[in-house]
């Protein structure tokens, strides 16, 4: 049996003999004793000395035990100061009064030492329990405050990272709760140098800071690579590798990534573990599901990672709609899931495309009885390419010295063409020439177009006329993937020449491929308009660059850019 810890016990008893007897008994049990002869004295002594426990006679002069007990309990506040009433009151009404006054137990007269010791022990155990509870409550409250503060800081840092993108572009609509980050939801959007748009809706496993912490490196990769002109494929590889490296084994990030190309009117899609996205074709009303064909990011090693994307044609005003699993997983009172079927019903019932979000939110509210605050949705529309524009990139160098008279040649062969995208590198090289920077968008678009033509139509021998309808479109990209995968020979050469000219300079780009060539004259006859699904983007090159020309039966293309130094 554990030894009783010595307590300071206040004995309030008006009968001198009883007080003396009780004091002695209690002292013999190892405690320190304070005494009071009436209720008022008891309260006063309690205030001064803060005893651990009180033995209180019920009937005392000046102030009775009940009132004294009430006052002492009030003074004690949250802490438990047990009060044991000393009473020979037997009527239940009197006992009830003791309880109402805050008494915790009774001791009858004549005093029984054994019973008294047992009651003191029991009351002390309760007292210590209460003290522990209060201590832990305060500890928890403090920790909670720290946590809230840490989250505030994390959110502030993340908001800076997240808002370096273009979520506020006019063709993007989104819904995201303020604490989406802490539910693991991530929504990013950025323009590529060519004016395409990369969008990502992600969902990290877990909640709170662990989920948020993984989001930041991911966002940096997304924005950095997109700005440099890397495609979805390279960006995905890098994001997967990063997450695989930094996250624990059981953490991963489900994500859907889109590359919307306003110029070529298509969307490239990669979905790893997210619910189906939907491509809404306005003309037919059809909603094409974009299902998850891949494992989430951060699971597979680089060798095993599957970066294959699907490409779909789009018309102006068509929309891609993505949502997090918060919508599907919403439960009602009977634990029934909202589910995909109900979502399809909302789609079917939706009359005004612009009200889709409201319709979904309303359906969720009706289903669940209340709104959810952790749902993420995004809708991206394809607009006329003239309307889409990106922010000018920011350069970190001083602008003093730059290379103005140089040339470089590259030859990318066989297997390299399969895996390596030279465009970001070439663009970075060219942007060392400060005079070219204001035209970086056009520059990138032109080089990308030249390279893609050389690779797809030249080396891979794909016929762009295949892309005139949706089926042909899908077939084209299947063939592209297959031929690229089995490519052994072939090359694409890129020649760059920069020369000073007058107050500014001139850039000549020439791209050659090892393909069969094409009938240059016939294509040149076509009017200079934006060609839709098919076409070699030749008109784009002629529009954005100067002196575009083709030679060697179409295997060699050349285009120039000029700049003037502003005074």
């Amino acid at each position, binding site marked *: 049996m554990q030894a009783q810890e010595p307590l300071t016990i206040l004995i309030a008893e008006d*009968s001198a003999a009883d007080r*003396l007897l009780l004091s002695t008994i209690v002292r013999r049990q190892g405690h320190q004793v304070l005494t009071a002869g009436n209720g008022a004295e008891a309260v006063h002594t309690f205030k001064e000395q803060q005893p651990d426990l009180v033995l209180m006679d019920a009937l005392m002069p000046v102030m009775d035990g009940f009132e004294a007990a009430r006052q002492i309990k009030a003074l004690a506040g949250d802490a438990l100061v047990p009060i044991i009433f000393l009473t*020979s009151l037997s009527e239940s009404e009197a006992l009830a009064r003791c309880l109402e006054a805050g008494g915790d137990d009774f001791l009858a007269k004549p005093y029984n030492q054994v019973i008294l010791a047992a009651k003191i022990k029991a009351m002390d155990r309760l007292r210590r329990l209460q003290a522990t509870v209060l201590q832990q409550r305060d500890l928890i409250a403090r920790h909670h405050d720290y946590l809230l503060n840490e989250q505030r800081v994390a959110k502030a840092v993340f908001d800076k990272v997240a808002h370096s993108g273009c979520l506020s572009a006019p063709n993007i609509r989104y819904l995201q709760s303020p604490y989406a980050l802490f539910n693991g939801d991530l929504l990013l959007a950025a323009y590529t140098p060519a004016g395409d748009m990369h969008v990502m809706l992600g969902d990290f496993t877990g909640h709170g800071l662990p989920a948020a912490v993984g989001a930041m490196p991911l966002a940096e990769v997304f924005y950095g690579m997109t700005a440099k002109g890397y495609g979805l494929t390279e960006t995905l590889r890098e994001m997967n590798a990063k997450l695989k490296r930094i996250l624990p084994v059981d953490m991963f990030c489900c994500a859907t990534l889109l590359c919307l190309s306003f110029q070529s009117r298509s969307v490239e899609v990669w979905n790893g573990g997210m619910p189906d996205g939907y491509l809404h074709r306005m003309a037919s009303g059809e909603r094409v599901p974009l299902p998850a064909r891949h494992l989430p990011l951060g699971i597979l090693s680089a060798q095993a990672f599957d970066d294959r994307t699907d490409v779909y044609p789009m018309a102006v005003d068509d929309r891609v709609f993505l949502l997090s699993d918060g919508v599907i997983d919403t439960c009602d009172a009977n634990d029934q899931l909202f589910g995909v079927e109900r979502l399809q019903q909302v789609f079917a019932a939706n009359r005004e495309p612009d009200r889709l979000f409201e319709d979904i939110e309303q359906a969720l509210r009706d289903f669940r009885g209340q709104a959810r605050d952790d749902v993420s949705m995004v809708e991206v529309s394809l607009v006329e390419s003239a309307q889409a524009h990106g922010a000018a990139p920011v350069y970190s160098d001083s602008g003093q010295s730059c290379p103005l008279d140089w040339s470089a040649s590259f030859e990318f062969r066989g297997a390299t063409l399969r895996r390596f995208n030279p465009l970001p590198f070439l663009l970075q090289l060219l942007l060392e020439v400060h005079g070219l920077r204001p035209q970086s968008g056009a520059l990138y678009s032109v080089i990308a177009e030249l390279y893609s033509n050389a690779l797809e139509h030249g080396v891979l021998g794909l016929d762009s006329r295949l892309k005139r309808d949706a089926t042909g479109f899908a077939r084209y990209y299947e063939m592209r993937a297959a031929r690229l995968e089995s490519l052994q020979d072939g090359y694409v050469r890129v020649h760059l020449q920069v020369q000073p000219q007058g107050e500014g300079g001139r850039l000549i780009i020439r791209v050659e491929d090892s393909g069969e060539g094409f009938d240059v004259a016939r294509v040149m006859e076509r009017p200079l308009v934006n060609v839709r699904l098919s076409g070699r983007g030749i008109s784009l090159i002629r529009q954005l660059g100067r002196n575009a020309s083709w030679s060697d039966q179409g295997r060699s293309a050349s285009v120039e850019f000029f700049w003037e130094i502003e005074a």
Partner: protein
Amino acid sequence: MTDPHVDRDVLDTLREVMEDGYPELLETFLADSESRLHELQDSTSAKVLSDVAHSFKGSASNMGAVRLAGLCQDLESNAKDKSPEALAQLDADIHAEFAEVRPVYESEKHHAHIH
């Protein structure tokens, strides 16, 4: 041979608990009791009688004066119901009972000093 007036076992326990403080306890009880007796005699209010009787009952029971405690309980419970004559009788009984047990406590005090 149990004493109907004073429970000897209680005294034994008191002696053991109080040790050197035993005489002081006895003295305090006797003094307290004297003053309570006066209060009983002087007071006429049923409430006061009841309260004093309650208090006296407590000490008496602590000290093992069982019959005295019983009489005080009677007075405490019935002070408001009893007639003045009945009250006077009860008061006299209490005085008498105390007179009966007093020598016991005096003797205890005496013996304690000797040991």
